C-alpha cells in the first residue's frame, strides 16, 4: 500500500498511520492537500466506529525553500464528546445534521497555522476551532442523506482556506494481495518465476474507508514570497509537501476516574500524556517508506523529517525492487538486470525534484537537499484531461508533480523503478519493453467516485452497504 501499515511500529497504531498524502493545484489559485489516516477501514466497523485520535497531533507541512524543513505548518487537534454516557450506541436515531442530538459520539477539531516564512513571525495561530467532523457512514437508517450531511462539515475560513476532516472512501488503489505475494502482477503473472495464468488486477482497497484531513489554501499562503507564481521554470514556483502525525513523549495508563478527562473517551480516558510531541508517522512521496526503505529502518524513517532523508538516499539509488524484478520475471528485464549505476532518475524524482532541462516546460527541483516530499509546481494549472500516468504520460500536472487523487502512482513508480525513466539521465540506456507495460492492473476509470469540489475525496462506503468481511 502507499503507506498503509507500511512500517512495523505504525502498523500497530492505525489512528496515527498516515496512509497517503496528496497535493494538487485547484481552481481559484489554490492548492488542495489531503492526508489520510486509519487505513483499511471496514465500513461496518460499529458500534465503535472509526475516529481521529484526541491524543494525536496531525500536521500538514509545506517547505518553501527546499531545505526539507517546514516553513508553513497546519496543525489539526481533535476532541471527542459523548452526548449520552448511558448507551452503547454510536447513534440513538437518524443523524440528520451535524448537531443532531441522536448522534452520541462526535468529534470537533481545531486548526492552527504556523508560518515560518521570512517576516511572518513563526507563531502558532488558531485559524479555526470547534469545527465538526461528520459521522461515519453507517447506513440508510442512521445516516440518511450522507452526502449533504458530510458536505456541511466543510468549513470555509475568512482567509480563503477550506478545511474538512472525516471519513472518506480510500482513493488509493492497489492490488495488495498480489504485489506482496512475491511481487506478483496478476496481468503478467504467467511470466513470474512461479507462474500462473494471467488475470485482472484486484483492487484491495475498493471497499475500504479512511479518515481524511483535507485543506485547501490560497497559493499565496504557501509560496516563498507570498505570490501566485505563473512561470513554471521559476524556483519559487515549487513547494514541498508532506503529512505527519505525532504522539506525546510519555503516556501513563491508570484507572478511569483517577487520571484522564472523564468517561468514554477511549485511550484518553485511561491515559495521561506528557512531554513534547514525537513524530510517529509521515508521508511525502507514495510508497517511499513502503518499498524503498528496508524494514529495519522504516520506524526510524517515520520518526524523522525530510531534512534527514540523505541517510536513506542509497536505498533510492540502488532500489531493492529494481534488483528483484529481473529475478521474479526471468527474461523480462535484461537491461534492468545490467543496470548497476546509481539511479539518478529516481534520486531526482523522489529526493530533489526534477531539474529544468529534463522534461520540456517542467521542473520541480528544490535544490540539492535530499528530502522525500511531494514537490508541487504551483505555476502549472490543473489538467483539463488528467493522464493517470502523470508526468510519465506527458501530463505536467500529475505525479511526481505533486500527486492527484487519480494518479496511478503504483504503475508510475513501478515503471520508473523498472527503468522507464532512466533515459532521462542516461539517454544511451534502452529500457526493457516490459518497463513501459508493467502495472498491477487495478486502474480502470473511474477507479473511485470523487467529488467535483473540495474535499474531492469520495464519500465513504456505507457500513450497511458494505458489510464487514
Amino acid at each position: 500500500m502507499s503507506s498503509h501499515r507500511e512500517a512495523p511500529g505504525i502498523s500497530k497504531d492505525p489512528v496515527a498511520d498516515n496512509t497517503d498524502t496528496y497535493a494538487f493545484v485547484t481552481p481559484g489559485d489554490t492548492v488542495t492537500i489531503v492526508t489520510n489516516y486509519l487505513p483499511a477501514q471496514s465500513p461496518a466497523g460499529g458500534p465503535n466506529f472509526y475516529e481521529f485520535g484526541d491524543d494525536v497531533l496531525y500536521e500538514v507541512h509545506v517547505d518553501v525553500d527546499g531545505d526539507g524543513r517546514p516553513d508553513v505548518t497546519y496543525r489539526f487537534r481533535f476532541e471527542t464528546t459523548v452526548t449520552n454516557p448511558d448507551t452503547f450506541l454510536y447513534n440513538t436515531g437518524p443523524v440528520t445534521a451535524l448537531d443532531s442530538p441522536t448522534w452520541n459520539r462526535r468529534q470537533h477539531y481545531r486548526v492552527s497555522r504556523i508560518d515560518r516564512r521570512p517576516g511572518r513571525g513563526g507563531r502558532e495561530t488558531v485559524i479555526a476551532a470547534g469545527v465538526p467532523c461528520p459521522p461515519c457512514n453507517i447506513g440508510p437508517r442512521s445516516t440518511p442523506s450522507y452526502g449533504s450531511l458530510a458536505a456541511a462539515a466543510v468549513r470555509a475560513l475568512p482567509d480563503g482556506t477550506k478545511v474538512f476532516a472525516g471519513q472518506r472512501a480510500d482513493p488509493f488503489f492497489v492490488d495488495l494481495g498480489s504485489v506482496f505475494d512475491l511481487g506478483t502482477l496478476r496481468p503478467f503473472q504467467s511470466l513470474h518465476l512461479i507462474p500462473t495464468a494471467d488475470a485482472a488486477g484486484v483492487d484491495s482497497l475498493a471497499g475500504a474507508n479512511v479518515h481524511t484531513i483535507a485543506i485547501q489554501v490560497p497559493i499565496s499562503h504557501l509560496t516563498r514570497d507570498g505570490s501566485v507564481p505563473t512561470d513554471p521554470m521559476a524556483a519559487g514556483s515549487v513547494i514541498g509537501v508532506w503529512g505527519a502525525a505525532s504522539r506525546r513523549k510519555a503516556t501513563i495508563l491508570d484507572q478511569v476516574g483517577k487520571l484522564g478527562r472523564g468517561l468514554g473517551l477511549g485511550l484518553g480516558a485511561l491515559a495521561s500524556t506528557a512531554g513534547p510531541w514525537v513524530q510517529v508517522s509521515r508521508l511525502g512521496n507514495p510508497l517511499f517508506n513502503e518499498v524503498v526503505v528496508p524494514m529495519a529502518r522504516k520506524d526510524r524513517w517515520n520518526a524523522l523529517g525530510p531534512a534527514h532523508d540523505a541517510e536513506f538516499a542509497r536505498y533510492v539509488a540502488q532500489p531493492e525492487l529494481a534488483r528483484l524484478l529481473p529475478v521474479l520475471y526471468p527474461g523480462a528485464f535484461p537491461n534492468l538486470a545490467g543496470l548497476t549505476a546509481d539511479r539518478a532518475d529516481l534520486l531526482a524524482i523522489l529526493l530533489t525534484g526534477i531539474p529544468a532541462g529534463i522534461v520540456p516546460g517542467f521542473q520541480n527541483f528544490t535544490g540539492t537537499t535530499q528530502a522525500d516530499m511531494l514537490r508541487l509546481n504551483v505555476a502549472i494549472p490543473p489538467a483539463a484531461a488528467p493522464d493517470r500516468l502523470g508526468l510519465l504520460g506527458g501530463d505536467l500536472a500529475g505525479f511526481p508533480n505533486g500527486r492527484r487523487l487519480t494518479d496511478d502512482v503504483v504503475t508510475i513508480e513501478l515503471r520508473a523503478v523498472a527503468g522507464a525513466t532512466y533515459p532521462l539521465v542516461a539517454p544511451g540506456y534502452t529500457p526493457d519493453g516490459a518497463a513501459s507495460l508493467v502495472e498491477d492492473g487495478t486502474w480502470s476509470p473511474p477507479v473511485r467516485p470523487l467529488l467535483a469540489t473540495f474535499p474531492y475525496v469520495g464519500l465513504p462506503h456505507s457500513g450497511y452497504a458494505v458489510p464487514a468481511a
Partner: protein
Amino acid sequence: MREITRRALLTRGSMGAAGAIGVLAVPNVAMAAMRPDEPELTEAERQVLAQPFVVHLRDVATGELELLVGEESIVFTDKKLVARVLRAAR
C-alpha cells in the same frame, strides 16, 4: 548541568503546563526528591502538579533526568536525586 531544586522544577513545569490535559497524583518519585532542608510545598505549588508530570530517568550513570510536563522536555542532572529515587525503588 545544574542540580535543580524541587521548587525550581515545579516552577519550570508550570511554564509549560498550558497543554496539560489530565490529573496525575503526586508521584512517589517527587516525594523522594524532596531535600531535607526544603520547605513544604505551598498550595499554589501543589496545583502545578494537577497535570501529567513525568520524570524519566535517562541515565543512571550520569544522573541525567528528563522532566516531561505540558509539551516541554526539561533535561537536568542530579546524581543525588537519582540515588534517592533508585533507593526508593528497592
